Structure formats: C-alpha cells, structure tokens
C-alpha cells in the first residue's frame, strides 16, 4: 500500500492575547491508501486542529509553527493558499461534525453538490447534473433528481450528512478527513453513515482519517488508532493492539470508561481530573497529574515514543525497559 499522508512533528499554535499557545505539540503519523486511521481523544486534545492543519483550514489566529505535512510526497506546509485550494475538495476532502449547520441554508443541494465539480473539473452543466445524481445515489439518497432542487432545511440530519459526504466525494479524493461525522446523529443513522464511509473507502481506495471520541466508532471502522492527549500523541497501534493490549494509561482509561453490555459487573471508570489548559505548563509528561501510575520520572522528563511492537508505540515511561511491570494495585479494573 502506498503511503498517502505523512505528518512529522507538527506543531500548531494559536495567537491569543496571552501569547502563542500550542494546541498540537509535535504530532507525527501517517496514513496509507485504503486505510482508516482513527484519531481518538477527549474534546480539546487537539485532534480536530491536527486535521484542520492538514487541510489548511485553521481558524484565522491559528498557524502551523513547525513540522511537515507530506501528501502524496508533496510538502503542504510551504504551499501557497492558491495551490492548497486546488487540493481541497479535490484530492483531500473533509466532512464535519454538524450536518445541521454545515450546508448553506440559502442554496439548493444541487448547487452545493456541483460546486466542487465546477471548481475543480471542466464539466458541462449536463455532465455535472448527471454526476451529482450518481453521487447522491452512491451515498444512498432516494429520489436524487428531486433532492437536487431542495434546500438543506427540507432534509433530515442523516440525509444532510449523506449530502456532505457526496460533496466530499465529488472529485474522487484520495484522502477523506472525517471530523466526528456521526456525533450529531442518532445511533441507527450513525451506523449507516459509518458503514457508508467504510464501503466507499473500500470501493474508491481512499485513505480515511476519522476523528472521534467514541471508542465504539473506533472499533467499527479503524485499521489503526492514534490516541491523543493534550496536543500529544500518546499511543498508536493497530485497532486490535489498542483494544486488546493498550499500553498507555490514558488509552486504558479511555477504554475503561466505555460501558460494556456483555459484562454486567463491569464497573465504569472515569479518568480523574480534566484536560490541562493550553497555557498550562506541566513539567514532564502532560498526563502525569491524572495518571494513576505516575512515577518520579514522569514529573522530571517528558517520555519519548517507546516502540511496543511493529506498529504499536506508547509515549510512556512504563514502556521503558526495566519498569514495564505495571503496579497492579492501582491499575484500572
């Protein structure tokens, strides 16, 4: 499988009245063709900002301060806005969290769906129309001819998210970024949308980056998982590795806070404390104030990424040789 996206040591910061605050602190990851990478973490851990950095849609006060983003071998951080625009909606597409507000209320579905085609492809109106109808069919929208003339408020949330997926797929992108695409939808619709993205990934051979805080979504769609905490990647691995043998205490905490319907005795654990503020200086590992396994070393020095297996890495001193035996008494049940 070809490597599609390679992000190295990405630092994204925000200019605020209190100075420059890093929201993403040296994140590295890669995505291959036909692969789904899930970025998991609490709200505010920097997962959305990471993806917005990739597609170049950071808010006005945000900027990539360091690091490199290579897409199909080309460096994106040095590209001009005009060149990035040619990639957006064409080679890299993105779907967002809120289908209810992500479509422009005053334009028809047809107009909004044809817009990426108009922008990136030379097509006649007739070709665009038939392509739009195909796209709507592809994402499972009934009666596509009629939908083209309708306005967003005439569609349900699930249908709107399908339209947004159709818009994202219009130019056959090689990379699809989905930022919590199912958060605002109810559970049955959620499953349909996830299946749809998964099917389309297989059919079109796209790479998918899915941002989520829902471990259920991860289990369903991910090939590989990247866990983020306070702007850092704390653990990466295949979906099996993350679920069956998580190494980082934060990953374990995340998994322990998911209810288990098969095990009625399962005790739901919450990770104590809350995510540090962007401007909070924490010495050593940024998770140590909340970590049940924190040692002296964790306060002194920020841990590097330790290799656990071929694909699994954990940014935790517990993985350092010699102290990998975990103190059982304080572990999550």
């Amino acid at each position, binding site marked *: 499988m070809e490597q599609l996206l390679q992000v190295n040591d990405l630092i994204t910061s925000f200019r605020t009245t209190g100075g420059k605050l890093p929201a993403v602190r040296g994140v590295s990851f890669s995505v291959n063709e036909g692969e789904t990478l899930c970025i998991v973490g609490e709200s505010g851990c920097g997962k959305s900002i990471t993806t917005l950095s990739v*597609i170049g*849609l950071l808010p006005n006060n945000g900027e990539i301060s360091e690091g490199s983003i290579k897409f199909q071998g080309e460096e994106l951080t040095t590209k001009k*806005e005009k060149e990035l*625009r*040619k*990639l*957006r*909606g*064409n080679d890299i*597409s*993105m779907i*967002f969290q*809120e289908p209810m*507000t*992500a*479509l*422009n*209320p*005053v*334009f028809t579905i047809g107009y*909004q769906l044809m*817009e*990426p085609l108009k*922008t*990136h492809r030379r097509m006649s109106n007739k070709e665009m129309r038939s392509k739009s109808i195909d796209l709507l069919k592809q994402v499972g929208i009934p009666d596509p001819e009629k939908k083209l003339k309708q*306005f967003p*408020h005439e569609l349900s949330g699930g249908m709107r998210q399908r339209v*947004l997926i159709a*818009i*994202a797929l219009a130019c056959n992108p090689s990379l699809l970024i989905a930022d919590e695409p199912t958060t605002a939808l109810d559970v049955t619709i959620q499953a349909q949308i996830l299946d749809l993205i998964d099917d389309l990934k297989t059919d079109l051979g796209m790479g998918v980056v899915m941002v989520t805080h829902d471990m259920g979504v991860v289990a369903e769609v991910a090939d590989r998982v990247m866990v983020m905490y306070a702007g850092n990647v704390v653990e990466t691995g295949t979906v099996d590795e993350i679920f069956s043998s998580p190494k980082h205490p934060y990953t374990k905490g995340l998994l322990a806070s998911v209810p288990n319907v098969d095990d009625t005795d399962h005790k739901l654990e919450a990770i104590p404390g809350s995510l540090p503020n962007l401007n909070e200086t924490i010495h050593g590992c940024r998770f140590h104030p909340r970590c049940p396994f924190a040692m002296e070393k964790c306060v002194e020095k920020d841990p590097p990424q330790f290799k656990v297996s071929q694909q699994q890495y954990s940014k935790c001193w517990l993985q350092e040789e010699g102290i990998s035996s975990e103190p059982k008494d304080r572990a999550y049940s």
Partner: protein
Amino acid sequence: MIGLIAKRFLQLLLLLVGISFLVFMSMHLAPGDPATIIGGPTATESDLSAIREELGLNKPVLIQYFEYVGGVLQGDLGYSFQNNQGVAEAIATRFPQTLNLAIGSMIVAVIIGVPAGIISAIKQNSWFDFSSTTIALAGISIPNFWLGAMLILVFSVQLQWLPVGGLSAPFWTIEGIKQLILPAITLGTASAAMIARMSRSAMLEVIRADYIRTARAKGVHNNTVIWIHALRNAMIPVITVIGLNFGFLLGGTIITEQVFAINGVGRLMIDAIAARDFPVVQGTVLLVATLFVVVNLVVDIVYAFVDPRISYE
C-alpha cells in the same frame, strides 16, 4: 402570500384609523385656530365665525372626525384650508420629489453601507474596520440640518460644484442628478451608517458559520465564499434594516427638504402644521403611515425570495 398581503392591509386599515384619530385630536387640542390664521389680523369676530362655519370647524370635534373619516373612505381627503386645493392633488404634486429624495438617499445608504460593513467584517480589527465603524458612529450622530448646511457651504458655496437647493429637474437629467446628490447624502448618511453596522455584525456572524468552512473545504475561491456563500446569508437581517430605513426616509425628509428648499411632502406637512391646515396635515400623515406599512410588506415578501426557509403558504 396573498393571505399575508390581505392580513397586512387589514392591519393597515386599523392603523390608519388609530393614526387619523390621534392626529385629528392633537391638531384640535393644540392651541391655534385656523380661522384666525386664514382671516388675518384684521378679521372681526363675525368674519372668524363665518370662516369657521364655512370650514365646518364650528361642529363638535367628534362629528368633524366622523365626517372626515367618511370622506376618506370615499376617497376624499378633503380640501386645504389655505388655498382650496384638494389635499390629494396637493400631495400628488409634491410626492414625486419626496420619493425621488428618499430613493436617492436609499441608494447612497446601500451603496456606502453594505460594502463598508462587509469589508469591515472581512478585515475585522484592521484600520479599515476601525475607521469605518468610527465614521458610522459619526454618521448616526451628526444631525441632518448641520450636515446639509455644511455640504451646501463646501460644495455649493465654496466649490460651486452643485446647486444650493431645489429638486425640480427630473432625476434622469444631469441637472436632476446634480440637485439630488447633496440632499441624498444628507438624508442617507445616517441610514448608511446603520446599514454598515448591521452588515458588519451580520457578516461577522456568518463568516464563522459551519457552512462557510464547508465551502472553503471544497476549494472554492475566497471571493466566491465571501460574496456568494456568506453575503446572501448576511443580507437577510440587512434587508430588514434597509426596509425600516426606507420607511423612515420617506417620512423623514422634512428637515432635508427644508434645508435644500425642496417642495416635497415634508415641507407640505410643515407648512400645513404652521397654518393649522388640518386636512393637509391629516392627509400627509396618513400617506407616510401607509407607505411605512407597504414598505414593510415588501420587505417581508423579499425575505421569501432571499431565504428559502421562509414561506408564507
């Protein structure tokens, strides 16, 4: 849509009854007798009572009111006390100038206000934004009569570029446009400022919307994002302000007409009030009220075209 229009006209009718009653009563309660003004200082008491008899002013006020309303319902706005001209006719000859001035001012207000507000929003906190919001504040605060006088002083007296007053030439001639420029700026400035402020805040809200990010994620050019995706949404509240302002402009030409010696409805009204010319005051006030309601109805209809979520079916 037809239901909406019918409902509005019913409301208009009630409104006009209320307004006419208030105006009628306040005119009669206010000091000053039309008969003494018409008769002049030399008129004897018997002259005055003859005048009152002729104008129907000796009848009880309520009877006078009902007679007036009865006339209006039959399309008769009555006759001016001063020159025996029909009120409808007097308004008809003056109204085109007022409409000309109001539309001219509205054009000035929209042409300046909308782009200024939008550019301010796109370049928030830039020097353009700061100066445009400051000028807008000044524009709202400056009184019409002062601005008008200053414009005349600079552009008519000093530079002699534009005429001092009058609006008699038709607006499609060069002379007509020249006559219109200063009064339109005088009257339109406050509206321009209000429209600019509204456009700015509406645009600021819209450019942070999720659908703007969606448009950017499609790779659409920034100009298209702003002037197509954002503008149409931002215009929805701005249209309300434009409509309201147009209503105000139609009724608010009095001072500007006075400053620029324009023979419009505003001056007709002021002269009539001074002369206690009751029927003319009534007629002009009813006209302004009707126009206000009609303009707002038009705004509501325009809404349905701009915003597909609004339907009057």
